[in-house]
């Protein structure tokens, strides 16, 4: 039996009168890449925010390594704060990148390792990220706001890895980038998974790329999971082909 790193049970999230998530069941195993595809407004970003505690659940529960991190009840023991969730080993590349524009690239990476107290280890991790994305090393003293879109995306991924997470959540890392950069980013994601054994939950509109690098895929429509299968099966599924792969 494989080890489950994340499990969502009947997760509901509501914004006023609108139910954004209508009972999501989903699981990610240790070492897997799992992708979630769906159109704009399907609730994908809301789902990620719910996992890291940026949106409260109205019902259901989320477990990380068998322990509750978020819960639909008001029970404080079952609902831990975002900073504690990050400390437990989850990291996230948020929607729209969310770099700190007025911090330098180096400072962005340092803040990424905020919970790390060992300075030599921090240096080592920064060096490792510069190996991964050499462009960031060249521009480390510059304000992050001056980076191009693709470079900002590299920075957010590097920053999310600074905490050496066990589970990395990525919210549309390919959005608005040129095809060659997208390929780069996806190759990096795949590499992080294989070499550093980071489990990955990838939320994407770029369905083909996402399914090609992932083990398992979920398809989401208006707050519900409508399909769930191995990624290679979803790639040949006629419904997925018609709706998401443009064939």
């Amino acid at each position, binding site marked *: 039996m494989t080890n489950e790193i994340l499990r969502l049970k009947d997760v509901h999230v509501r914004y006023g009168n609108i139910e954004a998530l209508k009972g999501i069941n989903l699981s990610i195993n240790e070492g897997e890449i799992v992708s979630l595809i769906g159109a704009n407004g399907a609730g994908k970003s809301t789902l990620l925010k719910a996992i890291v505690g*940026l949106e409260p659940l109205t019902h259901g529960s989320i477990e990380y390594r068998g322990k509750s991190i978020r819960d639909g009840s008001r029970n404080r023991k079952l609902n831990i704060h975002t900073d504690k969730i990050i*400390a437990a080993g989850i990291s996230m590349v948020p929607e729209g990148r969310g770099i*700190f*524009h*007025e911090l330098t690239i180096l400072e962005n990476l340092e*803040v990424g390792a*905020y919970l790390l107290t060992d300075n030599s280890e921090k240096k080592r991790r920064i060096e490792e990220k510069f190996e991964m994305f050499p462009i960031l090393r060249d521009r480390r003293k510059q304000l992050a706001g001056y980076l191009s879109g693709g470079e900002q995306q590299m920075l957010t991924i590097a920053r999310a890895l600074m905490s050496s997470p066990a589970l990395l959540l990525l919210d549309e890392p390919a959005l608005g980038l040129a095809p060659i950069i997208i390929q780069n980013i996806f190759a990096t994601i795949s590499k992080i998974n294989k070499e550093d054994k980071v489990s990955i939950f990838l939320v994407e509109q770029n369905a083909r790329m996402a399914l090609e690098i992932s083990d398992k895929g979920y398809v989401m429509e208006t707050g519900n999971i409508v399909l769930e299968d191995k990624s290679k099966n979803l790639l040949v599924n006629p419904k997925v082909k018609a709706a998401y792969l443009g064939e």
Partner: protein
Amino acid sequence: MNFFNIPSNELLQHLINGLTLGAIYSLIALGYTMVYGILKFINFAHGEILMIGAYAAYYFYSFLYDPAKGSSFIMAIFIAALLIAMFASAALGVLIERFAYKPLRKAPRLAPLLSAIGVSIILANLAALFFGTKSRKFEYPFDNTIIQIGSLNITPNQVMILGVGFVMMVSLKLFIDKTKLGKAMRATSQNQPVASLMGININRIISLTFAIGSALAAVAGVLMALEFKVYPTMGTMAGLKAFIAAVVGGIGNINGAMVGGIILGLLETFGVVILGIPQGLKDTIAFTVLILILLFRPSGILLKNIKEKV
């Protein structure tokens, strides 16, 4: 040399006076701007936090004050009084945030602003009730006879204000720029949800911001008290002026608050001399500056150039 009909020997004198006033405004303005940077609202109780700090220092200091014990003893209790003021104001600032602002964090932006004004009125009135409305003299911890350097008259207290102001601002700048917590503070002010994704405890950063801003206000309060005495509304006008200074520098901008305070101090001092405004109407200068800034440069004189990239 003759600027605006000011004899050159007086020019330097006004410059020193302006800088001294400006240093006090800067210290107070930092609190407004730091809180605005993180919570996007103006803590209108800031002036009263300053006043409470000044009273804490006053009671401690005047209780132990005894000229017979020698100058080093008096200096020691003065430094202790300054630290007590900083601690008292920091604690008060954190408590006010916890009970008057935090519950309103998700409310419309007008709500915490009104809460701040309410807290400000309550504190000023409680101070009047418990400490009395009489102005109290804060004895100088040293002999404050004017030192003459050529044609320049400078008091030891002015030297202290300039020195303490400089040390406080440099330390704050180093803290914000170089330390881990300083970086976390800047990250939090730029993007709160993403900062929490870095594992930063946002509530702790907000408390820290209030503590530092309030402690700086307390320092300004004690420095002011030496010149202008201690009374329940001492923070009101100083607070307003410092708020204007923060707006001049660009609210939310730390460097801006320091520069804005100095500029306002100089404008007030030179405005009186150049425009011949009577001392009693001196305050009109600051408010005129506020109106002009809001009309022509609402984001302050130090512009930020980085646009969000989508």
